């Protein structure tokens, strides 16, 4: 049975552009179904704003089913809101109550400049993936899936890391604005698999050092894991650290061979 929440106050960050200072503005949602998703609630707000001739609130979203990593939003001080292990698009109004005030802010990090309102540019995450998030594979027909045997626990660990949808919640939630969970996930995903071994140490060095150019440094608070819509474990950060040290040794040794 659907119920209706009444009298929700939204405090939303409005910012005209990257160089605007920005401010919170309050909006009243008189009534909303508890079956509405959080983003549907924002859609309805925008319909109303447009009908009043005002500017709609800009926010990122795409798949709306928790797989693309486009949605963001800091909701009541938590990246992706109060529900564990889900993205903003999977959050529903039943998590809230009538008369609540909900504060919505964009991700904040120097690597994520605000484009407008709640939308940020997360391109530095792509720079990290470009630096090493690939393997060398033969072109041509797809090889048989079971051509390279992989122990089940290894495949599982790699798949857990591969769940990362690149939303940037880890950076947003981290008190230091660090991207170690993202980078660790992208590294672990490939470094654990046989297919990833050829570039393993070049990947580790290149990805970590690209990360270094844009983001803060991990102090092991664990906020990233708590905010991650895929609940990726900070174990991948330990793996990142271990592989980075190994990479520094091995790459030097390999370079000295040429």
């Amino acid at each position, binding site marked *: 049975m659907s119920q209706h929440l009444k009298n929700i106050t939204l405090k939303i960050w409005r910012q005209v552009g990257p160089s605007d200072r920005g401010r919170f503005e309050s909006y009243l949602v008189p009534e909303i179904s508890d079956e509405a998703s959080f983003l549907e609630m924002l859609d309805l707000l925008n319909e109303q704003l447009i009908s009043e001739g005002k500017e709609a609130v800009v926010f990122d979203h795409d798949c709306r089913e928790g797989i693309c990593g486009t949605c963001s939003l800091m909701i009541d001080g938590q990246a992706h809101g109060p529900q564990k292990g889900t993205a903003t698009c999977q959050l529903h109004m039943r998590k809230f109550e009538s008369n609540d005030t909900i504060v919505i802010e964009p991700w904040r990090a120097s690597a994520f400049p605000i484009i407008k309102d709640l939308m940020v540019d997360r*391109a530095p995450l*792509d720079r990290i993936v470009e630096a090493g998030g690939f393997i060398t594979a033969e072109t041509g027909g797809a090889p048989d899936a079971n051509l390279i045997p992989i122990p089940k626990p290894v495949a599982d660990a790699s798949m857990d890391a591969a769940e990362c949808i690149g939303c940037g919640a880890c950076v947003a939630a981290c*008190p230091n604005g660090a991207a170690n969970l993202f980078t660790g996930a992208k590294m672990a995903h490939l470094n654990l698999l046989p297919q990833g071994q*050829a570039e393993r140490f070049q990947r580790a060095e290149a990805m970590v050092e690209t990360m270094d150019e844009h983001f803060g440094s991990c102090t092991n608070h664990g906020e990233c894991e708590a905010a991650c819509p895929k609940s990726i474990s900070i174990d991948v950060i330990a793996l990142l650290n271990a*592989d980075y040290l190994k990479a*520094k040794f091995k790459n030097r040794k390999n370079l000295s061979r040429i």
Partner: protein
Amino acid sequence: MASRSLRSVGAGFRADGVVPSSLRRMAQTISNERGRGPVSGTAVGKRGKRKPFLIDFYSTAVGKKYVMAVTGIIGIGFVIGHMVGNLKAYLGVIDHQGSRAYDIDVYGEYLRELLVPILPHGYFLWIMRIGLIAAVLLHIHAAYSLTILNRKARPVKYQSSRDYQVANFASRSMRWTGIIVVLFLFWHLADLTWGWFNPGFEHGAVYRNLDASLSRVPVAVLYIVANIALGIHLFHGTWSLFQSIGWNNPRFNQWRKGLATGVATLIVVGNVSFPIMTLAGVIEYDASVPSVQEVSE
């Protein structure tokens, strides 16, 4: 940094509507703004002369965290050894070369005698001191530069209050507890090593100096507060260093929190006992006991 990132996004996102030159390239090309060619599996190695390994490693944030963890382990080792050594204060007076002496005074003298036939008197103690000073300086330098890096990574703070889920008081106060510990360290050395703040300080009379210092209530309180700060620092530090060094073994991970609690408790209970027991009169200097120097002469 901000402008660089903005340039790689779609033109529609630009507030000024100008199509940036980098977008006229193919969508898949890699931005070349840092002068790096397209990244391939073989092109990431750096050309030219390389910096020495440790300097190269330390120049990255991950490398600095390794240094923090290793210097932290040195610190933990010292702090535990130091605390256990001080427990000798509870052994009181012993028989030393046929005369009475405070056990802890004998122990202090022994530290200078470490490795003596191999090294001259007091040398090994100085080697350890230099190692500890280097560790503390590196630890502080890494903490300082990473703090600066982290500030830069979020120059505009969240404008609403954060609702932290797992970050705890210990993890969030590392910089403060660290600073308290180092300030205390200065006081502690000036008090019991150099004797500046110790009434009637006598070199080598460890038990006497300890009692003279800790019988003062404000000083006792200072020791208690500083050691609680140290315990909080080590509670997060002991857990955190496993992550920083990449010691992550699913079989042992469950022990890390317990170990951190154990180390922190051990240090706090041991160290806080000294001011409390001095105020309680358990540690009380008896001037009739000759000093170790007198015995040796």
